[in-house]
């Protein structure tokens, strides 16, 4: 199917929305309440566009492509409408970016930047921070919430933990946990789905606070080291330290979702108790040793026992925690170097 967006002729898939088609082709249409995983919500109306031959403005997140469609994303009318919506959002919350953790990866900020909003057009309401600090890993500031509903859609539709919902009405509307109890006292299992889906600084990783700006980090995609699901994760690294972990969007098996351990259980990497040097036991206590000394001692003793009692007097426990390549080398070490099939790991335990 062929359509035109912003004067570019594109081949797109049937059933796609205009917003999806634009994104796939690297064309920016501002949006807030839409997320690939939670789908169109049609709430924020930031993604409006004009379509030739159709009256009025249309939300591109819910508008399906059709043959020959001509989409205009930057007409005066579109930009005016988008500015109005964003200015209203900015006026109803506490959207000051200075120390906000989301600064640099905030979608509201991106939209304001795109629209060239230097100073919000309306008087910013005297909004006080409304913080819920009760959870171990998730930090909420309702004053930065734009009620887009992505967190609620994720909690109920993706991970199906069914904790978050909208509570109250009209001006009082807000995101609540269970029957509006603090998150730390709710049934929340802190999977962080809401954190990952929040477009602003309203729901953020508590552990990341003050650890560094997004642009100071680099991301490395890898596989989670906990259970056997093999979730794909991005490690956010600053100065040889993990300061955040997010689920990799768009890639299975997890498609961005994670559990509390995978997302937040990374302290051990930089724990001061990590072993940093080989240790040799002498007279009942450990002393530090060089690699040469330690490995020579091991080699000497294993060779001696092998000579005295045969290779089957030695056993090797490999590990369900190390890589395939390392497991391969471990069994090769047992079988080729030592000469025993006494190699196993804790699959049964």
């Amino acid at each position: 199917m062929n359509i035109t967006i912003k004067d570019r002729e594109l081949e797109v898939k049937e059933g796609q929305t205009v917003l999806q088609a634009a994104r796939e082709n690297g064309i920016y249409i501002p949006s807030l309440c839409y997320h690939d995983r939670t789908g169109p919500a049609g709430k924020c109306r930031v993604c409006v566009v004009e379509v030739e031959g159709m009256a009025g403005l249309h939300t591109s997140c819910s508008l399906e492509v059709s043959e020959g469609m001509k989409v205009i994303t930057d007409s005066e009318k579109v930009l005016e409408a988008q500015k109005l919506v964003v200015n209203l959002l900015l006026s109803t919350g506490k959207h000051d970016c200075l120390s906000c953790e989301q600064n640099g990866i905030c979608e509201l900020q991106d939209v304001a930047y795109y629209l060239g909003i230097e100073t919000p057009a309306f008087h910013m309401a005297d909004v006080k921070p409304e913080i819920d600090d009760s959870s171990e890993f998730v930090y909420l500031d309702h004053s930065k919430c734009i009620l887009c509903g992505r967190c609620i859609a994720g909690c109920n539709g993706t991970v199906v933990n069914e904790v978050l919902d909208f509570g109250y009405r009209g001006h009082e509307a807000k995101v609540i946990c269970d029957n509006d109890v603090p998150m730390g006292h709710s049934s929340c299992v802190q999977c962080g789905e809401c954190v990952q889906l929040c477009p602003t600084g309203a729901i953020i990783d508590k552990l990341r606070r003050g650890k560094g700006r997004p642009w100071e980090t680099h991301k490395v995609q890898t596989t989670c080291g906990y259970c056997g699901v093999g979730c794909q994760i991005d490690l956010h690294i600053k100065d040889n330290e993990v300061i955040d972990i997010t689920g990799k969007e768009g890639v299975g098996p997890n498609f961005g979702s994670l559990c509390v351990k995978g997302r937040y259980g990374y302290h051990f990497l930089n724990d001061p108790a990590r072993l940093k040097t080989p240790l040799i036991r002498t007279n009942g206590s450990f002393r530090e040793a060089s690699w040469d000394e330690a490995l020579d001692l091991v080699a000497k003793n294993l060779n001696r026992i092998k000579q005295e009692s045969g290779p089957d007097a030695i056993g090797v426990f490999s590990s369900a925690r190390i890589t395939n390549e390392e497991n391969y080398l471990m069994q090769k070490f047992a079988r080729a170097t030592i000469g025993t099939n006494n190699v196993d790991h804790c699959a049964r335990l």
Partner: protein
Amino acid sequence: MVGLAAAFGSGAMTNPIEDIEKAEVILVTGSNTTKNHPVIASYIKRAVKFKGAKLIVVDPRKIPITRFATIWLRQNLGTDVVWINGMMHVIIQEKLYDEAYVKTRTVGLDELIKAVEKFTPEYVEHITGIPKEALVDAARLYAGASAASILYAMGITQHISGTDNVKSLANLAMLCGNMGIPGGGINPLRGQNNVQGACDMGALPNVYTGYQKVDDPAIRERMAKAWGVEPPSQPGLTITQMMDKALSGDIRALYIVGENPMVSDPDLNNVRKSLDSLEFLIVQDIFMTETAQMANVVLPSAAFAEKDGTFTNTERKIQRLRKALDPPGAAREDSDIICDLSSRMGYTMSYNSSLAVMEEIARITPSYCGINYERLERGGIFWPCTGTAHPGTPCLHMDQFTCGLGVFHATDYIPPAELPDEEFPLYLTTGRLLYQYHTGTMTMKSPGLNAIAPECFVEISPEDAKNYNVNDGELLRVTSRRGEIRAKARISEELKPGTIFIPFHYAEAAANMLTNSSLDPAAKIPEYKVCAVNVDTAI
């Protein structure tokens, strides 16, 4: 894995995780999925909530996923063969099984029919405590689905009858034609990130990579060629057997990498004696674990974020691990340490990178033959992958089973090795929590996780709490024939009267002081899930 290998010729999850949302019926047993595999639990919950799937949960505990279940069967501990045979009894009686499938794809139906004959709903109710009507409903629901998926975990395998339990589930899946179809299959959920890969790589006493048998001369010849030395022909010993041989002095040295048997193994007093009996113990790990403390030499290694390589997940998908950090101090990657040590012992191992190791693995492993890092850059690949143009195999046993025809195995009920008696009147079952992981080496370094799950506890039903005069939060002493621990009571509706639950993560109150090391005779898995204990309020 032994059970699945016997039935189908290969022991692994048969279907991809994404298939869960294609199932009409999902049967979860022996898996506290929301706690131990939360991301997979989301698939189950979405299937039920949005795709109209029906969920059957069979578990002695009222685990959270039961909230989504159409039918929850609460069996007595260690009676799995009985309810599974009972379901098949109903399915055969009512002719609900897939006759065409059974005829063309399987052998051994007659033996199975004979074996399940006595497992009438009344008999099942008597042994398992599952009401006969509920059993019949579950059997009809499972058999009526065009695609039904079975998911299980250690609650099925960690019994002396573990292999029989798995064989019975395999029987059930084959009987209803659920093997080799999208949304079907029998799917063991693996507990550790690379337990599948460690098995695939031949870190097992009886097989090389890709489950090639060590006692097959042709395969041994291939390894000899690849390695330049003749490997031994007799299968070796499992961990639990090695522990016994350590105690008897037949094994004099152990080299333990990335494991903590001093918390994770059953009957810890015995483990300590075994490790104490060793002449030389080498432990390679990232922390000074309870096991490392007993070592002669401790070698510091790199954690998952500090190295390149691959992991194979529970659905047989090989995925990349990428180095993001430098290891601390002088710590080195495990591969680097192993190669260095091997070379010092007189057998040179030298590889430029993990990529070069994978090249060697692909050369000698039919099921990993098509795996290389260039392809993995574009995404994970499911084994078997038999060539670089082969797309991988998300769903096993499509047209035929790995071993040709699927084999029904007649199984009979074997009660747990230890049952409650006067002295030890309660059942103990063990498991994991959402907020801690295995022996806690990693998770217990997180202040947040420790704040949520700070210490061991004993879950006890309100009825037992009343009988034993136990208040919530009160310190309990739990004793078995093998040891005793102390932990606070947590009164919980999840448990059935007569059974208590203890998470095994905590070294200071290690549930495995109590557990029974009796083994499944085929798989050598200890019976962690059932033993007999007594509780009293500690003085």
